[in-house]
């Protein structure tokens, strides 16, 4: 009897097992989250808070060796409200050895920070460098189509990406006068017939792929609505980026250097300032720039298991917004961090950051902000 049952059992098992054969199409649910604690001192005014956990599920659907869809949702508490976002949602198809087409909403290869380094489990510090993110000058994502690919040059490698997207909208000051002249890259709806055209070329000159230099450009003829005074206000942006990651035996660890310079040039236009009920026209040379460089070191060849999980990080960044704009600003920031890696995708980051800002949203004079951060990020 037992034998019969066993016999039946094993054949049933064998059958069930067959259904676990990989299917041609594959679906993965991945993503990341982070939480933390922050203490900020802004010109003597202190605040501290635990941060609501951020949760970003990522959906990857692979239809075949060539066709794939990727999407990331973002859930975050802003104050008491749940803020949701669609970070990206795009479909990609490998056309040939050297060319893949992507369409949808995707992260823009303008430099490397937003496309490759910003997720909390990748970014070595809890904050973004100046110039990225909210009110930043570097475009992060947009809706459009893109061609990208890579070539092996027999040791060195070259990669490229070119894209056409809806492009940014200029803030004309009618809603937020203090932001007149800023480009809004987070406005995904197309406001005019003009499209933005951009691209990046990356060169990895060394055969061990340890170094990559990249140059990016982004241009549009029009950033204003079709029927507005700002229709002919164009913009040209460019960026330079560098990445160097190498395991260095005498240093007993991995050295990781990242840097990016962004420059934004928006055509000069006239904006209006309302003073005592009278509308005063004004104009300024609309040029902004930002830069960051980061050095991190992980002693992975150290004899101590504890030391192997540690990482030391330093980052400098600066941001210059146009003189004469309501959002005129010159900021410099230093950030230092000590990270403890629990796994390749989970890290506890301790950091100290000090920012000196001259000007900024309708404030004159210099503000110094010092912050202490403890963040815990995990990818899954």
């Amino acid at each position, binding site marked *: 009897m037992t034998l019969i049952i066993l016999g039946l059992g094993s054949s049933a098992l064998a059958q069930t097992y067959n259904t676990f054969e990989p299917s041609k199409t594959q679906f993965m649910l991945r993503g990341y989250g982070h939480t933390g604690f922050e203490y900020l001192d802004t010109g003597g005014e202190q605040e501290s808070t635990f941060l609501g956990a951020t949760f970003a599920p990522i959906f990857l659907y692979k239809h075949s060796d060539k066709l*794939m869809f990727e999407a990331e949702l973002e859930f975050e508490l802003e104050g008491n409200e749940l803020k949701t976002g669609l970070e990206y949602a795009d479909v990609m198809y490998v056309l040939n050895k050297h060319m893949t087409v992507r369409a949808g909403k995707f992260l823009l290869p303008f430099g490397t920070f937003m496309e490759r380094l910003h997720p909390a489990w990748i970014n070595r510090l809890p904050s973004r460098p100046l110039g990225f993110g909210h009110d930043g000058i570097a475009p992060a994502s947009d809706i459009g189509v893109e061609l990208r690919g890579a070539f092996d040059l027999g040791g060195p490698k070259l990669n490229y990406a070119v894209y056409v997207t809806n492009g940014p909208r200029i803030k004309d000051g009618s809603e937020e006068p203090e932001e007149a002249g800023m480009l809004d890259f987070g406005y995904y709806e197309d406001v005019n017939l003009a499209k933005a055209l951009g691209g990046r070329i990356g060169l990895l000159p060394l055969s061990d792929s340890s170094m990559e230099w990249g140059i990016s450009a982004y241009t549009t003829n029009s950033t204003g609505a079709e029927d507005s005074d700002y229709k002919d206000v164009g913009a040209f942006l460019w960026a330079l980026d560098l990445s160097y990651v190498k395991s260095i035996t005498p240093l007993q660890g991995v050295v990781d250097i990242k840097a990016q310079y962004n420059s934004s040039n928006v055509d000069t236009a006239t904006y209006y300032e309302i003073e005592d009920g009278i509308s005063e026209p004004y104009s300024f040379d609309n040029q902004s720039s930002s830069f960051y460089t980061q050095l991190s070191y992980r002693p992975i060849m150290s004899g101590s298991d504890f030391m192997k999980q540690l990482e030391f990080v330093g980052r400098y960044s600066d941001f210059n917004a146009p003189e004469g704009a309501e959002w005129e600003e010159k900021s410099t920031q230093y950030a230092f961090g000590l990270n403890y890696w629990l796994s390749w995708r989970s890290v506890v980051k301790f950091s100290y950051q000090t920012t000196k800002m001259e000007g900024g949203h309708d404030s004159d004079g210099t503000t110094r902000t010092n912050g202490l951060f403890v963040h815990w990020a995990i990818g899954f």
Partner: protein
Amino acid sequence: MASIMVACSSNKKPIATDTATEVAGSEVDFKIEKSGAQLWGEVCNRCHIAPSPADYNDTDWETISLHMRVRANLTEEEITKIESFLKSAN
């Protein structure tokens, strides 16, 4: 999990040096080709810490490889070799 990472980061060296010299087919110019293991050590560490082969099963590696090929703009040769290494070593 922590030990996986350490294993991954510290294993990399020996794997890389052991298998670095795989000679290409005799037809061409005796170019020394890199192994998938060596490429994994060099390429997958550029943006984030490289996952170790044991972190995912073969099916997942196929999806991840296509995702990374496009996101990181890798050459077809690089990703093909790395994918077969990851699938053979997990």
